């Protein structure tokens, strides 16, 4: 990675921290401690399940909201503030700017997820009194959530490279929702015939498959995640995020900034 990309990424990270993005950790801490203490009193036999389900769901949703709402402003904000011209007037290529922004936001989300993961494990220790071997699978679920962040961040950047922030947010969120139904879409394609089948199959493979990256329920029930799935999901997320990033670079390279 070139030094210029690292600089852009670190500045993006610092800007996100200055924008008080990490304040969501306070809400998360309150949520986890509240759940850990209260659930045992109002429900039966699901204290551990709730900590894992609620914790991982919150990590995922908080991160996706941050990825979308910060990601859509990464390019447009620089244009509005005219700081983009200062950056591009230096020996920085447009693609380096996009890639740097991507790594900056991805880094922010990873740091955010790291602190939330500490919160999840602290709450887990509180309700279970000890850790067990199967808790290691929670780390796999967290890893998959970070892979989701990479895809969403790349998509938000892609949309923000050619659209307004509002529309970018709508597109990115819509694609996230559709992505959770990717497997249903593929099932629907299988039921159709002719050109509709081709179109539906194409759409099903074009949208990101988020359902494969969601193993929260499985790990909550201490079910192991296959090593092959970890490898395949890693490769898929990297390839898909790379594809979206390439699209963002291609559009941004041709964008008239005058």
């Amino acid at each position, binding site marked *: 990675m070139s030094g210029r990309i690292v600089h852009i990424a670190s500045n993006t990270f610092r800007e996100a921290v200055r924008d008080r993005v990490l304040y969501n950790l306070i809400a998360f801490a309150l949520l986890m401690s509240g759940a850990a203490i209260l659930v045992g009193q109002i429900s*039966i036999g699901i204290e551990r*399940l709730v900590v894992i389900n609620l914790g991982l769901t919150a990590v995922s949703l908080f991160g996706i909201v941050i990825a979308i709402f910060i990601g859509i402003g990464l390019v447009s904000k620089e244009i509005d503030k005219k700081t983009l011209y200062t950056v591009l007037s230096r020996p920085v290529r447009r693609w380096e700017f996009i890639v740097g922004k991507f790594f900056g936001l991805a880094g922010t989300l990873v740091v955010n997820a790291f602190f939330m993961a500490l919160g999840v494990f602290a709450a887990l220790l509180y309700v279970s009194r000890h850790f067990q071997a199967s808790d290691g699978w929670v780390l796999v679920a967290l890893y998959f959530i970070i892979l989701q962040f990479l895809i969403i961040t790349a998509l938000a950047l892609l949309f923000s490279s050619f659209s307004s922030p509002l529309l970018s947010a709508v597109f990115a969120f819509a694609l996230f929702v559709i992505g959770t139904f990717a497997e249903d879409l593929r099932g629907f394609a299988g039921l159709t015939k002719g050109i509709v089948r081709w179109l539906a199959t194409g759409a099903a493979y074009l949208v990101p498959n988020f359902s494969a990256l*969601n193993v*929260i329920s499985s790990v909550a029930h201490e*079910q192991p995640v296959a090593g092959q799935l970890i490898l395949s999901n890693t490769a898929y997320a990297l390839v898909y995020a790379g594809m979206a990033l390439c699209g963002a670079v291609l559009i941004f390279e041709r964008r008239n900034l005058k």
Partner: protein
Amino acid sequence: MSPSRRITITASALLVMCLTASVLLLRQIDRERTGTTLEEVLYISSPTLLKRMSLGYDGLLADIYWTRAVQYFGDKLTRGSEHFDLLAPLLEITTTLDPHLLVAYEYGANFLAPKFPEGAGQPLRAIKLAEFGIRNNPNQWHLYYDLGFIYYFDLEDYAKAEKAFADGAKLPRTHQIMPIMAAKMAEHVGNIQTARLMWVTTLQTTLDPNVKANAVAHLNALQVDEDVTTLERLTSHYREKTGHLPQSFADLEAANLLRGIPTDPLGHTYKLMPDGRVEVRVPDDLPFIEKGTPIGYIPPRTPKLPPVN
């Protein structure tokens, strides 16, 4: 005082007043609305639709619905309501959202199957729930045990109970009680010993203090039923021998029919009534007993379970 400070103090005071007023008004509104409006509503009744709407976060939604089912059942039981219309749908939604949530099958079946006031009196819905659980978790012997339990206790269908226990006995990881129960069901042995065996197994295999307390209460009730039957038989025997009823247990002891004054499982002595009946001293402390209660006794709405260490 500066104008800015005056505004700060006024705005803060107004904020606190408005917050207090809104809380008081909400409490008033809650009193004006009927309980039915607040509780008997299941906005989305389709489990499949809810699963789709959860966007993959179905585990958390299942936990929420399970908590809602627990609260609904507990609230209805406390109020003494005999209508549990939403209980089965809530449990179906919970288990569709998370088919591996074993606690929902185990407790859910126990909420649904027993007759009021112990449960909702819906054994068929309980069987449907247990069978759904077995389809999704075929290697969990406890679910077969629960199914057999419902067939035995609530429907007295020995053939189906035997099949449930026998199916559970075939699992690679099962409990030693399963083949024994299957054999007992095959013999149609619906006696106190079989019931005691089942409750002892429940007591030994659960880690949950509520289930333990329930099992202990049922075991105590079985002991009382057995004791009262035996003591009343001895009283009849004494009458046949002497021509009159005993005045106290000491008479039975003097006639060599009894050794010592009998006590119930909580340590209280039984009472021998003038008409020859035997009663427990504190029936409220011994829920589920079918014998030994005073004439016209009405048990409390919520069974008083013993503390379990």
